[in-house]
């Protein structure tokens, strides 16, 4: 009986100990699934711990907990705090999930600290980075974050007249599949194309012009051919292009091939394709304060202004960069994580590699858009 009791005690104690170990030092899969649950183990005993806890709560969408832990919560409502992070109107932020975050202490004293928080959000079109510099203050024996709230502007009720071009297409009948058209495809032409060696692969960039008087839905496909004429690889421009081209519009494109050396490539076969589509010039997106910022941290920055009367949920900015001789040297892009409200400027910044930035003399930016419930 003594042995039995001993076994029971050993099993019970071992089980409790294993649970404690698994909770204090959780396995990676448990950490990934816990999200804000790891907060159980966190504390606000230091400035970094307080920011770490807050970031975990944001990642787990534990808004109430996160808001209640803030030192300056009296300055804004919980709803404003949530809208700061997820957007007031549906946008990339609204359905983003926190992929990871980094903390970097900038300054610390006995009762105040400054910590940089980099939140890496994952969205359907890729990741975006939200960097906040947080002040953390000590209240008693606990640290609390002063959240630098960014309040999205509210658009006052108003009437915005719109006057834009629109092209409609009459198809043969409702039973016809899209693409099986009996009209000639719009005329498009590649006006520039450069293959370059980049990051252990080949990048092909260029520009495509719609020469026609009707809108075109365009894609560009490239096939790399070896010296013996065989195809090495084939890729298309995917989202590194503006697929809808109005008459006489030009779009940049970029096609990336990974793990292929330019020296192995003999020639490139380009296949632009175009299909007639119904399109409109609305919404018109203006670009203001466009500026090329030098290295370090070279970027093309500016502000997008939605000149139409409808909300644009996602905007995609494509930047084309030229050297002094007007040669195309780079194509880059950025998705804007906040919705574009009518007449409200929203900043963007397209990063440039440092070695490219020093060659750039001029640049051009265009924006394409997505509005929910409305298709291009």
């Amino acid at each position, binding site marked *: 009986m003594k042995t039995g009791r001993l076994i029971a005690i050993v099993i019970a104690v071992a089980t409790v100990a294993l649970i404690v170990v698994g909770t204090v030092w959780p396995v990676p899969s448990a950490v990934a699934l816990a999200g804000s649950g790891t907060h159980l183990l966190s504390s606000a005993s230091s400035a970094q711990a307080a920011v770490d806890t807050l970031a975990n709560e944001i990642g787990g969408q534990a808004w109430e907990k996160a808001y209640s832990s803030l030192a300056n919560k009296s300055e804004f409502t919980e709803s404003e705090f949530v809208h700061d992070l997820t957007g007031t109107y549906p946008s990339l932020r609204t359905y983003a999930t926190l992929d990871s975050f980094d903390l970097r202490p900038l300054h610390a004293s006995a009762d105040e600290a400054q910590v940089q928080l980099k939140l890496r959000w994952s*969205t359907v079109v890729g990741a975006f980075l939200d960097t906040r510099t947080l002040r953390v203050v000590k209240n008693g024996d606990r640290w609390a974050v002063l959240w630098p709230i960014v309040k999205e502007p509210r658009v006052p009720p108003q009437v915005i007249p719109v006057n834009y071009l629109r092209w409609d297409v009459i198809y043969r009948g409702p039973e016809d599949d899209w693409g099986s058209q009996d009209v000639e495809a719009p005329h498009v032409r590649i006006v520039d194309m450069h293959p370059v060696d980049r990051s252990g692969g080949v990048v092909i960039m260029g520009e495509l012009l719609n020469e026609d008087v009707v809108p075109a839905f365009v*894609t560009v496909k490239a096939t790399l051919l070896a010296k013996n004429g065989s195809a090495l690889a084939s890729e298309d421009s995917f989202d590194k*292009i503006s697929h809808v081209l109005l008459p006489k519009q030009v779009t940049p494109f970029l096609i990336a091939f990974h793990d292929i050396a330019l020296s192995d490539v003999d020639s490139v076969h380009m296949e632009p394709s175009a299909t007639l589509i119904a399109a409109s010039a609305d919404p018109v997106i203006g670009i203001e304060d466009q500026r090329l910022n030098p290295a370090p941290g070279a970027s093309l920055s500016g502000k997008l202004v939605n000149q139409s009367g409808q909300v644009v949920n996602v905007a995609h900015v494509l930047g084309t960069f030229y050297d002094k001789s007007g040669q195309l040297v780079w194509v880059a892009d950025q998705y804007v994580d906040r919705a574009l409200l009518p007449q409200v400027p929203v900043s963007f910044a397209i990063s440039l590699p440092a070695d490219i930035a020093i060659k750039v003399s001029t640049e051009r930016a265009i924006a394409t858009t997505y509005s929910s419930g409305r298709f291009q």
Partner: protein
Amino acid sequence: MIFLAALVVHLPLLLMKLPLKSYDANFHIFFASHYLHNWFDPWNPKWYAGFSQTTYPPLPQQWLALVSRLIGLDMAYMTIQFVAILFLALGVYRFSLLWVDRRAAAFAALASVFLGSECFLVYSAGQLSTTFAAPLYLNALPYLSQWVRHGKWRSFLKGGTLFVAAAAAHHATLLFGSVLFALPVLALVIFDHTNTDRKNTDRQEGGRISVPAFLLRTGSIVVIVGAAVALVLLPFWIALIHYPVTQTPIPHPSRANYLLSPQWGLNYFVVPYGALILALPFILLRGSSVPRLRPLLLGFWLAFLVGLGGTTPVGRMVLGRAFDVLTMERFSYWATLLALPFVGLLATELIDRFQMRAVAGLTMAAALSCALAVAWATYRPADAADFQVNTVASWLNRDGHDRYRYVTLGFGNKISRLAVLTDASSVDGEWNSGRMLPELTQFGGGALTSSKYFGKGGLDALSAILHHADRYGLKWVFVKDPYYEPLLVFAGWRRVDDLEDKTITVWSREDVAPAIPVNAPQIPPRWQGLMWGILPIGSSILAMLVVLIPERRWHRRRAVEPSVAHENLVLGRVAS
């Protein structure tokens, strides 16, 4: 009586086709539908642009396909599942008899009908293979015990064929069952041997065996069953060796820490265990105080700890990389099966002591456990949105649309049902271990249709596959969740149609050539197809025939009473 209870509890639920709402039921039906039309060709072109069904043991799905010829796939599923439930009650009774007396074993079998984990796996998880293999395995274990104790060839044959059939139903059950179930049974044989040897009693049962005989009998059944399993599932092993599961692990909530993620603790601990949680102290105290129950307690404890997922480091330590591949709820299921003999004991003692009050209490506890687990499929449904995919299938099957591949977004586990209904091929699927496309294996996402739930990994996989749409003949995307629309718009896809009252939109790319077969190196040769179509199902038919051979009563087994248990334990104190 126990079968009648199973009939009363489960038959109405199965006739209502409740398991069709579970996570995996349609997955098994999809596999079965392939066997139905291509019995000897395990290459299924409908998922992942083609994958081999030899990557998953086929027995329940093959039986499902056979029965479906009479009553259709859905009802065949319910029939096979019901048979598995009946077999489980029988298996638990026979397994429990190794440890406890007939009365307690009968209560254990009755408890299996109401077992939360069984209901959870049947109605919420839809794990047909696990719930089909476990009863076969439990029924095999008493034969293992008899073979090792008495060396009777009939037991060897019956046990061996049942083990092989269990492996043909679910290889993991045999693999882990060997440690969790078979080792305790072998330990029991040793215990009973030493015990009878010391007390010099019970020799008339042939209970005494020599060490060489024990080793020889154990070794022989391990070797021969191992060889038979290797042969019966040879195409599976070949596929596993040639194409090991090296893809980036996919997160699964059963690997969570249930304290840090209480919602998963509720899902994977409270619901499967139900009222068994109240019996845990009894299991611990009785299992440790009765020497011959200790092997069973240790088996239970190990399964219990692994079943806790990431709550303890045990799962990761014991399983290694397999921890990130397997799901942990099956360990909880096995733990509850191992706990049932204790539950039988507890029930007998409670009823002896408290009579009708105990009967009422136990009935209530069993009913609540069962009800919670069955209802869980409604409270936490696999698919929050209930919608039909028939119109999507019709759309794909007309006007040559099925010459191209498709992918769905926001369809959840409806993709299995859609795959059953359509002739078209998809680049997506629900059998992650069977996929070979590099775009799907390198990012750590699960099914593309649920990409957003896998975070960056899932969305990267979706983006990669859309990037190579023309490579795979991927022309159609069916969207139920507008979340994905921005990606499609910016990546050059265009909306071409609406279905289901505009709740499903069809998107297309123009410059895509019709689909051509891919993954050619993974296509199993014809001889493997023949083996796959004959041996697994053949093993189960052989097991049925062999088990039907009448037993020769060479002894009347005396159920060993766990009399030590009564020495010092006051039940009321233990249970409180």
